[in-house]
């Protein structure tokens, strides 16, 4: 790995496909982290690691990462083919997409829900509203946990599933339909750059100061 961060050689504890081409990979935790941080992951020591948000709670025994297998990706097809006991290389955690206990809105698309799952598992769900956009109902990862912890403050927006039990449409559509968006709260956005940019534009058009919008994009 090109980074000078400490690198850990880890043995995979489990790997599960939780939706089509979407996997949760876990390994034993031997470092401390803050919910919202990322790790760099690779299957070799001299490759180009990719960054993944940690989806585990800060005190959990295992670190989980959530990833979407891209057929033409450099790393995810290799990761999805791994088995328990196989080796991966993981950096120490870093990043400062940190939320804490303040009231806030969390907005995620796809696997961008991972840092918010970590925050919920770390006990930061009080005063939070999570809006999650995905194609189908199966793309609302960790929905049992999130439903349990956030109940009515967990909004799912399914873009492709006509019979979804949730909001049918884009999360940006849901946001536009809201007559009131609080202007004093912080908004945390995580997901594709397209989602982040469009949501940020909506929020700014609704008089939310840009200083209250914290974003993390996939790259």
């Amino acid at each position, binding site marked *: 790995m090109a*980074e000078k961060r400490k690198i850990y050689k880890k043995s995979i504890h489990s790997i599960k496909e939780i939706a089509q081409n979407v996997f949760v990979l876990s390994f034993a935790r031997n470092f401390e982290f803050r919910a919202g941080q990322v790790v760099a992951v690779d299957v070799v020591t001299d490759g180009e*690691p990719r960054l993944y948000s940690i989806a585990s709670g800060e005190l959990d025994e295992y670190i989980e990462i959530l990833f979407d297998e891209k057929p033409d990706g450099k790393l995810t097809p290799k990761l999805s083919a791994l088995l328990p006991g196989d080796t991966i290389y993981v950096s120490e955690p870093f990043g400062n997409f940190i939320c804490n206990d303040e009231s806030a809105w969390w907005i995620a*698309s796809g696997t961008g829900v991972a840092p918010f799952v970590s925050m919920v598992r770390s006990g930061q769900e009080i005063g939070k509203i999570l809006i999650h956009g995905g194609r189908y109902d199966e793309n609302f990862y960790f929905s049992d946990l999130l439903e349990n912890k956030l109940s009515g403050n967990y909004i799912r927006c399914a873009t492709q599933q006509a019979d979804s039990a949730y909001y049918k449409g*884009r999360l940006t559509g849901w946001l536009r339909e809201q007559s009131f968006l609080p202007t004093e709260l912080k908004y945390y956005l995580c997901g594709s*750059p397209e989602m982040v940019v469009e949501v940020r534009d909506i929020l700014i058009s609704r008089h939310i100061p840009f200083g209250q919008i914290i974003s993390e994009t996939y*790259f």
Partner: protein
Amino acid sequence: MDKQPLFGLSLQKIKYVVASLALPSFTATQITDWLYKKHVSSIDEMTNLSKKARELLNEKFIVGLTAPSNVQTSTDGTKKYLYPTATEKFVEAAYIPDEDRATLCVSSQIGCKMGCLFCMTGKQGFQGNLTAGEIVNQIQSLPEFENLTNIVYMGMGEPLDNLQPVLDSLEILTASWGYGWSPKRITVSTIGVIPAMQTFLKQSNAHLAVSMHTPFDDERKRIMPIQSVYGISEVVSELRKWDFSHQRRVSFEYIMFKGVNDTPRHAREIVRLLEGIRCRINLIRFHPIPDTALEGTPYNDMVEFQNMLKARGMTVTIRASRGEDIYAACGMLSTKELVKRQQEPDF
């Protein structure tokens, strides 16, 4: 099967092509000579290649140059060219003539993943990476190619998020078998993707420009999402490990936003953060983009800010604002050309 472009391939890759066609090995340097020194646009123009070699090449390859499809010209002489890509999208290159120099600002990606608050390219989202050939094509196919003195990778996209094609394009521009330009004529900009920046600094001698825009980590997080992963203080710490006292230069780009990053507190923190690093700071006027929440700092206040930094020993320039009447800031033209962005089904 579509024919593959030769333009944009390194000498090493052209050697593979030549070997795959069972042509003499010296044909590779003949081809790079035609591509990058004699600037031909067809294989048939490579007249010192045997007829058989040209026929074999023509079966599977084209030169692959693409002319710009649109141009806007500013009253100050700046021109913004729109280049179609292989994926039927568009990228921009801005030609900026000055008294004794002419700079081309090239794009490295179609759109951008970084989502900076002040950037028009970010509004397109990310639509793909450019190949090395598509990057160098912006230079080669420029009508004013012969006038160029400098290249800056500051157009659409984050160059270090498309690292290998950018490094390949730099090799073509600077290698003796390529254009043979000095790396001192080339500047690559980044918002601070640290691992890729390390690789770039190891493998290229081109100058580096880092987009700072505020020296405070918390403030930067609000205008540049990358800060959530790679903080500016961490980027600067990394740069301290590299030698910028000789040929290679590092500069820091600083777009000035009224009331956001233009106070004496910011000037003091810039000085503290960059202490000991031999560098230049480029203060840049903000070209407002549609629906932006930001305003540019008035010019007089920029001068005052510059003076505060200069008084503390910093080398600071205010970059002349060019092409304002044609929206020369990156992303403006190509965004306009996007008739309708594909609806992203994921959200």
